[in-house]
């Protein structure tokens, strides 16, 4: 089924992307269609108890890089959440966007691609399958955050989100490689529990933290609110940020015995829970309050999962589900307010409770669920968490428990502040100040109401929900079997604690609404952007230093490198096979060649340099004759003549001498030249020291007569034995000729040239 659903989803994405702007808002219902199928299938899997079959698609089996899917209990719960909320989001988008919006096709396609990625991620049973979809969520999120890309803020936020999540992706890659290496399997269901390397644990935890916007990686999340609201509702509350939680959950059994896992997880969780909550209290943008609240809630999930006890795991799964529902609804509410009033600033918003009653209702229910007020799903989940906290012992766990309590108080506080800020009528100001409101849009209201209702329905069918949560939790920790969610737990300690939390949270929230006047500066985001620009700046400085653009500099670098490369030869110098000279003629001619070459370098005019070069050529010709190479000598003589003539003909026009260069640079050139001369000497001497093979001279001589049919062995080699080289060589000459002619041709200005070229069009 999974291998059927994924292609359907992907083909739908392609279809949507290719549909252009023809369909307008109709793309959204179309995009929702495959998700409906998925949702129905997910529900059927959730209620059925039969284990699902493994599905696999082989890709690179040599690297264990295969697509392996298996639907676990946690996965079926997530499937229902992802596809269900996805459907609501698409319905909402239908109302959110207007028909003349640009790029709806790519937007809906990307959003659906994101759903696909998220679904693939939860369905995966191989670490590499998981990783592939993990990275896909990063990319799609980048595209969605930057949807309004004509705004600079959106572009910067998208880049921030991409970099942080991609960095996390790399940590994940490294961590998965390590864990797959030591566990000997890439299957999540076969990982087992063992003392794994803490490096892998830390890397995977960091990956989870970047995706789930945990402190200090949370800095990308507030900026991601530049995205359209459906995106925020979907990615940045309900689904994508949950990917990190899912990852942490999936690996929590594996790393149960690795101490670092818990420590790092608790650090991320507690820090994010508290810092996120405080951040939410200090915002004035309603959407940002929710975003910071999300950071805090995710921190709570991380803390609970890291605690590792069965009860905490159970509570974490319950909160995971509850949070997805109420947070998505709240984001939709804010989006609707934004569209209908034109602002999200709680200082400007007032009196919406009466002018937007449905919206207010949804917001009230969802906010109450978030605060953990009965009779709602959030309440039952929060109760479970508090119960888990009350069972803790040990310093580390108690600190975590205390933080959870404090975090819950803050949660209630920012929820209160949010509700008061958006919906209440300011007492000292006139009622006419109530924000003007545009007419309602059915698409938006229906979907947010649906999600709002889910918080209630969830409470009504709590025993069912409890079973689903329990089986998901048992997948991570089998001891969770004994737990369940209660509609009414009775007057337990936990209930009293919750009541106290809500009460103090309300007070704190009321104060915060009245007293906080300064908005928190997005220091984290500025820090991220600053790091990027520092990287870019450093890159410029380094490149400026390294990439001189100067040819002499490049050549010198290369010569020095080559000289350094000959260093091993120095340790193998052996003078035995070296003799002074073959003949006196050779010595004399060699000295002549060297002297005339020095003259070439010393003289200051082109003509005299050309003449000196001619002398070098003649000496070399002489050396060839002395060596017994008449063919070489003949060719060299002719070639040298042509080059000297060509040099004079070609560059004779340049009357002035060679340019003067600075003393230092000339010194460098001297040194480099000396170095390479020395290196070449060493290399030649050393390589002749102990040859491991001899050229087959007899065979060449004999075969060239018998097979090649010629007495001039050099010529036979050229035209027969190594004729391929010769063929290559003359082709080089042909291309040179073409190049020379092309360079000589006077060029037309570009436009005229285009016209000229057009005449040659096929």
């Amino acid at each position, binding site marked *: 089924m999974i291998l059927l659903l994924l292609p359907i989803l992907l083909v739908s994405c392609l279809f949507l992307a290719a549909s252009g702007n023809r369909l307008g808002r109709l793309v959204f219902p179309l995009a929702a269609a495959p998700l409906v199928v998925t949702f129905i299938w997910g529900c059927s899997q959730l209620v059925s108890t039969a284990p699902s079959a493994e599905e696999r698609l082989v890709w690179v089996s040599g690297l264990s*890089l295969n697509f392996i899917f298996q639907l676990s209990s946690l996965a079926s719960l997530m499937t229902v959440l992802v596809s269900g909320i996805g459907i609501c989001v698409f319905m909402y988008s239908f109302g959110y966007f207007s028909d003349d919006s640009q790029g709806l096709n790519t937007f809906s396609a990307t959003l659906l691609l994101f759903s696909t990625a998220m679904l693939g991620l939860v369905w995966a049973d191989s670490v590499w399958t998981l990783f592939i979809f993990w990275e896909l969520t990063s990319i799609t999120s980048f595209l969605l955050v930057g949807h309004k890309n004509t705004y*600079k803020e959106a572009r910067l936020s998208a880049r921030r989100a991409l970099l942080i999540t991609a960095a996390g992706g790399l940590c994940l890659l490294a961590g998965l490689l390590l864990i797959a290496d030591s566990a000997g399997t890439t299957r999540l269901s076969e990982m087992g529990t063992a003392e794994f390397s803490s490096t892998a644990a830390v890397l995977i935890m960091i990956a989870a933290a970047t995706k789930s916007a945990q402190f200090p990686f949370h800095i990308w999340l507030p900026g991601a609110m530049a995205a359209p609201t459906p995106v925020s509702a979907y990615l940045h509350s309900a689904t994508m940020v949950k990917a990190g939680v899912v990852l942490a959950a999936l690996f929590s059994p594996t790393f149960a015995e690795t101490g670092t896992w818990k420590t790092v997880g608790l650090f991320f969780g507690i820090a994010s829970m508290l810092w996120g909550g405080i951040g939410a209290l200090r915002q004035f943008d309603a959407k940002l309050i929710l975003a910071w609240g999300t950071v805090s809630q995710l921190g709570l999930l991380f803390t609970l999962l890291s605690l590792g006890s069965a009860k905490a795991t159970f509570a974490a799964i319950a909160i995971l589900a509850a949070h997805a529902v109420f947070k998505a609804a709240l984001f939709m509410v804010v989006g609707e307010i934004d569209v209908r009033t034109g602002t999200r600033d709680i200082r400007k918003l007032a009196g919406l409770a009466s002018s937007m009653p449905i919206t207010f209702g949804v917001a009230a229910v969802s906010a109450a669920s978030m605060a953990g007020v009965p009779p709602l799903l959030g309440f039952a989940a929060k109760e479970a968490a508090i119960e888990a906290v009350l069972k803790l012992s040990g310093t580390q766990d108690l600190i975590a428990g205390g933080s959870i309590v404090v975090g819950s108080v803050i949660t209630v506080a920012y929820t209160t502040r949010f509700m008061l800020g958006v919906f209440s009528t300011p007492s000292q100001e006139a009622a006419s100040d109530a924000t003007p409101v545009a007419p309602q849009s059915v698409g938006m209201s229906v979907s947010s109401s649906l999600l709002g209702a889910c918080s209630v329905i969830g409470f009504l069918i709590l025993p069912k929900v409890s079973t689903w949560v329990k089986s998901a939790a048992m997948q991570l920790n089998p001891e969770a079997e004994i737990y369940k969610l209660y509609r009414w737990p009775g007057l337990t300690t936990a209930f009293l604690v919750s009541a106290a939390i809500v009460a103090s949270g309300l007070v704190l929230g009321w104060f915060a609404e009245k007293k906080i006047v300064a908005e928190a500066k997005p220091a984290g985001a500025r820090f991220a952007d600053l790091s990027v620009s520092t990287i870019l700046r450093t*890159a410029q400085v380094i*490149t400026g230093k390294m990439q001189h653009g100067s040819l002499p500099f490049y050549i010198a670098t*290369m010569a020095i490198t080559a000289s350094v490369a000959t*260093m091993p030869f120095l340790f193998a110098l052996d003078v035995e096979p070296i003799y002074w000279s073959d003949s006196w003629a050779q010595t004399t001619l060699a000295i002549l060649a060297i002297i005339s070459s020095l003259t070439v370098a010393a003289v200051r005019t082109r003509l005299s340099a050309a003449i000196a070069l001619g002398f070098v050529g003649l000496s070399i010709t002489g050396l060839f004759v002395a060596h017994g190479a008449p063919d070489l000598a003949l060719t060299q003589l002719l070639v040298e003549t042509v080059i000297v003539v060509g040099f004079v003909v070609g560059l004779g026009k340049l009357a002035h001498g060679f340019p003067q260069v600075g003393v230092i640079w000339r010194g460098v050139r001297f040194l480099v030249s000396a170095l390479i001369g020395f290196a070449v000497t060493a290399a030649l001497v050393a390589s002749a020291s102990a040859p491991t093979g001899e050229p087959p001279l007899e065979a060449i001589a004999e075969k060239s007569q018998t097979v090649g049919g010629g007495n001039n062995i050099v010529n036979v080699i050229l035209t027969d034995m190594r004729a391929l080289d010769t063929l*290559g060589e003359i082709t080089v000459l042909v*291309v040179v000729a073409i190049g020379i002619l092309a360079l000589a041709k006077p060029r037309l200005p570009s436009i005229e040239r*285009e016209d000229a070229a057009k005449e040659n069009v096929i």
Partner: protein
Amino acid sequence: MSELLGILILGPFVSAALALGLRRYSIMRDALTVSSLLVVTVSSAFLFYFVNRDGTYVVTIGDWHPELGIVLVADLFAAMILFIALATILIVELYSLFQRASVWGANPFLVGPVLLVLTAGVTLAILTGDLFTLFVSFELILVSSYVLLTHQGRPPQIRSGMTYVVMNLFASTLFLLGLAFVYAATGTMNMALLAERIPELQDEVAWGIGLWFLVVFGTKAAIFPLFSWLPDSYPTAPTTITAVFAGLLTKIGVYCIIRFHTITEMNDLGPIILVAAGLTMMLGVVGALAQNDVKRILSFHIISQIGYMLMGLGLFSVAGVAGAILFLFHHMPTKTVLFLVGGLIESSSGTSSLDRISGLASRRPVIAALFAVPALSLAGLPPFSGFVAKLSLVDAGIQSVSVPIVVVALFVSILTLLSMAKIWLEVFWGDRKDIGEPYKQTSDLIGWRYKAMVLTTGVAVAGTLVIAASAGSLWEMSVRSASELMNSSYSSQVLK
């Protein structure tokens, strides 16, 4: 099989000669160029198939004994790389056929024949089993690239052409000196014999030779610290030319490094190669981050990715070398396609400077999509071929417990993504800027030509997706090639 190799080696020479003769008859010339490229590409596909099925194929040219004459060796490594190289050239030639009506296109009289010579050089370089023939084939490749780079004669091309030509001439000089060293030490130029005789040399001499050839091939391959010439010269050429250069030239250098240093068992040089690899990938991507021009960013990326291939070699394990081979195979077409997209950007905006383009995604969404696939692939993101290649390298690094290079490789890939994001943010996103008046006259947006260019690029992008999809069997072949190279079966196969 002998005929097949004959077509592959000599076909480009013959058709280059004929195309030169036909240069004024544009239809015949272009038909000849395209059809001969098609023939050699198909032949190389057959060669790939046969070699994969039957094992290494050796042809002694003119029936001379390997010690006397030249041998051609088509092992799996050669067959793989040859196929992908020729397919890449074919795509570029088609693209250039459509692009030529504009200033961004290269001169049609010249590109056909010279591109065929380049093809001949590439084929020869990949198939030859003789070090001197390798030198000749390098010269073929280089002289064609000199001409392709400078033939329009524009001042920036002449300036960068000088840097490029002189650097490479110097490298050729070093190559010949290296041949002298090798000949003095072993008395042969045949690579199979060298594979036997170089490991027998005194260690220091073997290392010296290995390092020297690392410098020689490394200059072509643009590795640290010898890469500076590349970003100065590549971007100035017409797009199609840059695309060929980007996909092929440096990669032939890498191919030679992998070939030479594995069969001559230069395992001791591993650490040095790894250091060079790390610095190459790091400085390459740093350079890319500093640039403000699409073509220059992409040019610096070439360097960075050469570092990855070198990393695989430097590990000197079968997994590492296999990773390098897979990376090479994936990189050649993907990089070329990216430059072709760069050409589309240039054609549709009149410039490739980041400062002057923005909002292209809304104006030309197809270009954006065509850019995204190879860009993500090169940044090593799944599910594209670059991911498989990167994963295999990183995996090999972890297996060899070479932690520093793995860390560098991972860090570089995030910087690569950052620089790709830079292109995306500045070129494709942002305020929609329409094409400037001066460029309108010279742009390629003339009806079917533009569509044909997009279509060609689209086919090429689809090709890279096919590579990603068949990564499983490609990886298996890479492992087989790597173990052939590493277990010294090369010389026994050639000299049997």
